[in-house]
């Protein structure tokens, strides 16, 4: 009834090619952004902003990164954690080598460095496909973590191998890292960066580069025959994906935890992000956010739920129940909608158009 494109006429190609051609969608996105930027910081507690929203946003960014590589370009990767670690350690080295450097530049350069590392590990992708590529990227995961553990230079020779973010300001003297940064500032900073990068990525996957990626994903031989060069296309996907993962890693180390050891980016992190895009939906920016929400928020919800209902259950039992319910829900969603939550969202929209007379 309300969600209908009837009567909306497009008078230009620009209007026709907009990301959100339907007016209601635009309103919806603006409303979400308004809620995210204005309402959530105003009404949420520090616990909500700092421990739920912040990891959700940063991991969503990493999931977008992996989605570019796996969802759009079809290259299965298990190296996300390694690339996030690269971003975190690059950011740390940059911030300590050049103490005056602005945090945005630090993030940009650490992303660029990670992109370079990503290209390096992407080279075998020309010859290796599918599960074998996953194993090759798994090697990058282990190699990178080993490297940061092994060479003291990366941690400025700290005896424990832990890096710690120096206090840095974003605009004026508003701190976004370090002990005295407010959670609201951290949240808004991360939100701005994630929003910006998500928008850029959305446009990128709609451009010729994105179409090349999808062509390679759908059938690489066909893509080659119509004139898409394999190596540059795949390497572009690796570079851009690593760029996003690197920034996510830097944000994780600097803005979220403040201090981090390489083990924070171990193979479990890679799997976590891979599960996000599988559950959220491969080849969808929206899916990255939905998947991140599912993986990050649901366990927290499950472990808190008994408390809210006033049930006095021992913590170990809660943990076990949490794992069981979480596992069951993953299976449930994959059976109900194998294409992920993003597809569910799309179906909902299609149904809404027909509402109240669905067929």
């Amino acid at each position: 009834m309300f969600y209908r494109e009837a009567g909306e006429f497009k008078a230009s190609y620009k209007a026709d090619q907009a990301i959100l051609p339907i007016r209601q969608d635009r309103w919806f996105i603006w409303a979400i952004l308004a809620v995210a930027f204005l309402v959530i910081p105003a009404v949420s507690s520090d616990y909500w902003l700092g421990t739920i929203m912040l990891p959700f946003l940063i991991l969503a960014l990493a999931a977008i990164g992996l989605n570019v590589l796996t969802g759009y370009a079809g290259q299965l990767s298990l190296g996300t954690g390694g690339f996030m670690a690269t971003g975190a350690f690059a950011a740390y080295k940059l911030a300590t080598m050049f103490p005056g450097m602005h945090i945005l530049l630090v993030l940009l350069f650490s992303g660029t460095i990670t992109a370079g590392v990503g290209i390096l590990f992407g080279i075998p992708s020309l010859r290796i496909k599918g599960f074998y590529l996953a194993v090759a990227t798994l090697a990058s995961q282990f190699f990178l973590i080993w490297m940061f553990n092994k060479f003291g230079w990366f941690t400025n020779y700290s005896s424990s191998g832990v890096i710690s973010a120096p206090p840095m300001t974003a605009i004026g003297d508003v701190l976004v890292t370090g002990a005295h940064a407010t959670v609201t500032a951290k949240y808004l900073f991360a939100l701005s960066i994630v929003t910006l990068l998500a928008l850029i990525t959305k446009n990128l996957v709609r451009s010729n580069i994105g179409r090349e990626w999808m062509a390679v994903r759908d059938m690489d031989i066909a893509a080659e025959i119509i004139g898409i060069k394999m190596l540059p296309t795949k390497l572009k996907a690796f570079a851009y994906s690593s760029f996003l993962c690197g920034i996510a890693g830097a944000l994780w180390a600097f803005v979220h935890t403040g201090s981090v050891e390489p083990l924070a980016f171990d193979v479990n992190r890679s799997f976590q992000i891979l599960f996000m895009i599988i559950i959220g939906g491969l080849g969808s920016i929206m899916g990255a956010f939905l998947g991140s929400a599912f993986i990050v928020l649901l366990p927290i919800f499950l472990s808190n739920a008994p408390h809210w209902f006033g049930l006095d259950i021992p913590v170990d039992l809660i943990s076990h129940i949490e794992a069981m319910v979480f596992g069951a829900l993953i299976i449930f969603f994959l059976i109900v909608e194998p294409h992920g939550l993003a597809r569910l969202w799309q179906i909902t929209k299609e149904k809404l158009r027909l509402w109240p007379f669905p067929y």
Partner: protein
Amino acid sequence: MNIKKVKTGIIAAAVGMACLVSTPAVMAAESQYIGSLVYRTGPYAPGGIPWADGFADYINLLNERDGGINGVKLNLEECDTAYNTDKGVECYERLKGNGPTGMPAVMPLSTGITYALLDRVVADKIPLITSGYGRADGSDGTIFPYVFVPPATYWGGADIAINYISQQEGGYGNLKGKKIALVYHDSAYGKEPIKTLEALAAQHGFNLTLFPVPHPGLEQKSTWLKIGRQLRPDYVLMWGWGVMNATAIKEAAAVNFPREKFIGVWWSGNDADMVPAGDAAVGYKSLQFNGVGADFEVHKMIKQVLYANGKGSAKSEAGIGEVAYNRGVQSAVILTEALQGAMNEFGNKPVTGEQVQWALDRLDIDEARLKAIGAEGLFDPIKLSCADHLGKGRAKMTQWDGSQWKSISDWIEPNNEMLGAMYKESAAAYAKEKGITPRACN
């Protein structure tokens, strides 16, 4: 899926959100809240459960026997981290504001969580107590006002281990030319002793060889072949964790390395790690910063007051006296003594983290006090000051006899003069990086 289902879904989501926003359950108004981060699940649960039981038992003992501290009841809430850093941070953030005055102190029980909380505790003014783990340079109270590391640090542990070896060999002079190997968990935790050992090797002329073991440490065949067949060291030290410990001991037995010359740090000395190694573990030695066994006065009281009335936390009395259990009791004593110190100063009502930090800066658990608690010998007296957040840092050597740990040395004091300079240097480097101005301590 039809629209009806979507509607139900939306309503369910809305109800869920409404629940999320509502405040957590109401606490009793005038009780002291204690938030405890434990790992009763996850891959390391066998070591985490006895700690949590010991901690809870001592808190419950104070509640049942004395009615709390200075008449203020204690209200313990646990949060399960599963030894996972993300979950640990979430737990800390969830618990820190609970109760009338918030969490009075946090004991994260994990190096990863400790590092993730270092910045946060400063902003939240909640003391971070890391007993025998975490940052060794946290002992410098001028730079880490909210970090407390009693009773021992890894660097101190490394020094004590070498000290013990020198005693076995008949003095530091005999260490020259000896071969000592370090088998360590390749992580922030495992790398902590390296600098100290390298300094000691240079000083005393022994050869140090490093053997990193990648997480989780199930595969150590090649490491132990090198140790047992090629290097043949005089002593092996181990900074291991979880399943790595039992694996190392079994591999040491496989290459026939004498277990008597195999010394683990305290985290390689849990009962839960020895039992799976079976007979291979007999003779293996481990440092402990707490007494071993179940014969302390406090154990008797816990059995009498709690377990006799079915109020114990552990499944059975058999769990009492495990090393990890004793550590839990020890941590609870340190915390409750600090709480009492804060209440004596600020009044007998729930105290804040800042007040507990004040008390921890002046914490003094001497022999007489330990005796009064019933923990004489359970751990070494602890005396802290504004600048010294460690105390003497002593530990003792124990040996596994196949069924339990036996104490085989007195408390050994590390070379605090040398270590103190190293703590200062490392803390100063941290302060420079983070732009921290050291606080004045008079």
